[in-house]
């Protein structure tokens, strides 16, 4: 492998990883705070992609301008889902939560199938095919934009969690929800906010992927696996872990796709998944047992 090729693959991997990170941050945030493993996470991505697709094709919006509609739209969608499906399962056994979110995933896929058909739909605009040439390095403009937007959203989330009262309240709730209530934190409201925030970030990731990939009702299943691997790799509940994990998986996928075969990417995820579980069960950034503190 030449140096140029190496850099080319690395760049492609990092750019892909940025979007993986954004998808995974929503999942890990919701898990960290609410202890809910959201199996409908991939379908949230799908909803974001369809919303973006129709904003571009039917409302003739610029795909990147569409983000400012997709983010609040998915935030509201997340609020609705939390209040109707998730809230009744909080504090119930894991089985109840698994059934609720798997059920939601099936419902959303079926609804998308009825509404949009099983056709695979993609955007074909000048910007989706635009390339950026940096010397001998060539990268897609949508890939760069997706990466930059994902990193900006992640940075904004870090600032929000680290520096605001509500952000601190979210972290406090993740660490000890009954102590959080004693601080005057409205824990159910924090759950609603966190779920909606996680959903909005995933929807944003979907909208950023729309110019690169195509959408179909089952598109979420392709990405949700990556998100779970990233979350376990980074440490369940760790936002910075999801960021680093997303980038790592993006790089691994790009290199393994070139050196082995893109068809094997799911197998590669699972191998990484197993290695992490054996070598470092708490993940790269996870603290062993920290996911149990909010009992």
């Amino acid at each position, binding site marked *: 492998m030449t140096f140029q090729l190496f850099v080319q693959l690395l760049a492609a991997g990092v750019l892909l990883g940025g979007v993986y990170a954004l998808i995974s941050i929503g999942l890990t945030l919701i898990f960290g705070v609410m202890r809910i493993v959201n199996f409908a996470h991939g379908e949230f991505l799908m909803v974001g992609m369809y919303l973006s697709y129709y904003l571009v094709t039917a409302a003739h919006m610029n795909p990147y301008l569409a983000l400012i509609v997709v983010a609040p739209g998915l935030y509201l969608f997340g609020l609705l889902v939390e209040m109707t499906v998730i809230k009744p399962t909080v504090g119930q056994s894991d089985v109840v939560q698994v059934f609720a979110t798997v059920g939601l995933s099936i419902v959303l896929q079926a609804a998308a199938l009825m509404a949009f058909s099983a056709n695979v739909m993609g955007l074909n605009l000048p910007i989706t095919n635009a390339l950026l040439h940096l010397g001998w390095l060539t990268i897609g403009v949508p890939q760069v934009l997706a990466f930059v937007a994902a990193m900006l959203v992640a940075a904004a989330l870090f600032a929000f969690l680290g520096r605001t*009262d509500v952000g601190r309240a979210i972290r406090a709730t993740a660490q000890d929800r009954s102590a959080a*209530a*004693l*601080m*005057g*934190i*409205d824990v159910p409201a924090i759950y609603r906010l966190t779920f909606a925030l996680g959903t909005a970030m995933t929807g944003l990731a979907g909208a950023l992927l729309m110019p690169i990939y195509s959408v179909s009702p089952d598109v979420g299943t392709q990405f949700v696996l990556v998100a779970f691997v990233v979350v376990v790799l980074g440490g369940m509940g760790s936002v910075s872990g999801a960021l680093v994990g997303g980038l790592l998986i993006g790089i691994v996928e790009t290199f393994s796709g070139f050196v082995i075969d893109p068809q094997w990417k799911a197998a590669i995820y699972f191998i990484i998944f197993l290695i992490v579980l054996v070598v470092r069960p708490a993940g790269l950034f996870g*603290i062993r047992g920290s996911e149990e503190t909010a009992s």
Partner: protein
Amino acid sequence: MLEVRGLAAGYGENAVLFDVSFDVPEGSLTVIVGANAAGKTTTCRAISGEIETRGGTIRFGGEQIEREPSNRRVERGLVQIPEGRRLFPFMTVEENLLLGSYAHRARAARQEALDEVFTLLPRVAERRRQLAGSLSGGEQSMVAIGRGLMARPRLLVMDEPTLGLAPIFVERTFEIVAEIRKHGVTVLLVEQNVKRALSLCDRAYVLEHGQVVMQGAGEQLLGDEGLRRAYLGM
């Protein structure tokens, strides 16, 4: 300020409190003592709203609050330092303190409260940038007290603040309780350290098997033959 009448509470099929009644008058230091499993912590949890009551009433400042969620009670100035401290271990001491003043009623005076806490607890000021989980038990208990004070409490409920502490920190905790009280904060102190607590308080209640079995002025209970034998082994 706090009036508890006929309080009943429990967990699942276990009833822990049957009929607990007591008063915490404004400006007082009131103490609840009792053996392990007498229901002291359950009483605190019912007052803070961490668990639901199964009977009886809790009035704070004249208003009935036993159906209110915890966060509304904190907004009223009913603040609790829970058993075992319950700091947020992966946050700094300062972040823990700031969370103490999360309630709207406390946010406006946050800087002032922070200064007061650092003056009262200089050790906490020294540790402000450290993760709360990395402190010793004694230091953690000081942070927990500071975090409680950050909420600008009208009534501070302290659930066994000296549990598991080294003697020097036990002594320091009682000094701080006296100091807090001097600042005009009403305190409800739940303690196993019966002798020390009784000599400090205005009024005390003895809890046994989920019921108040004895009450009176601290000094009076200290002189009580039966109590001395049951709890002080003297």
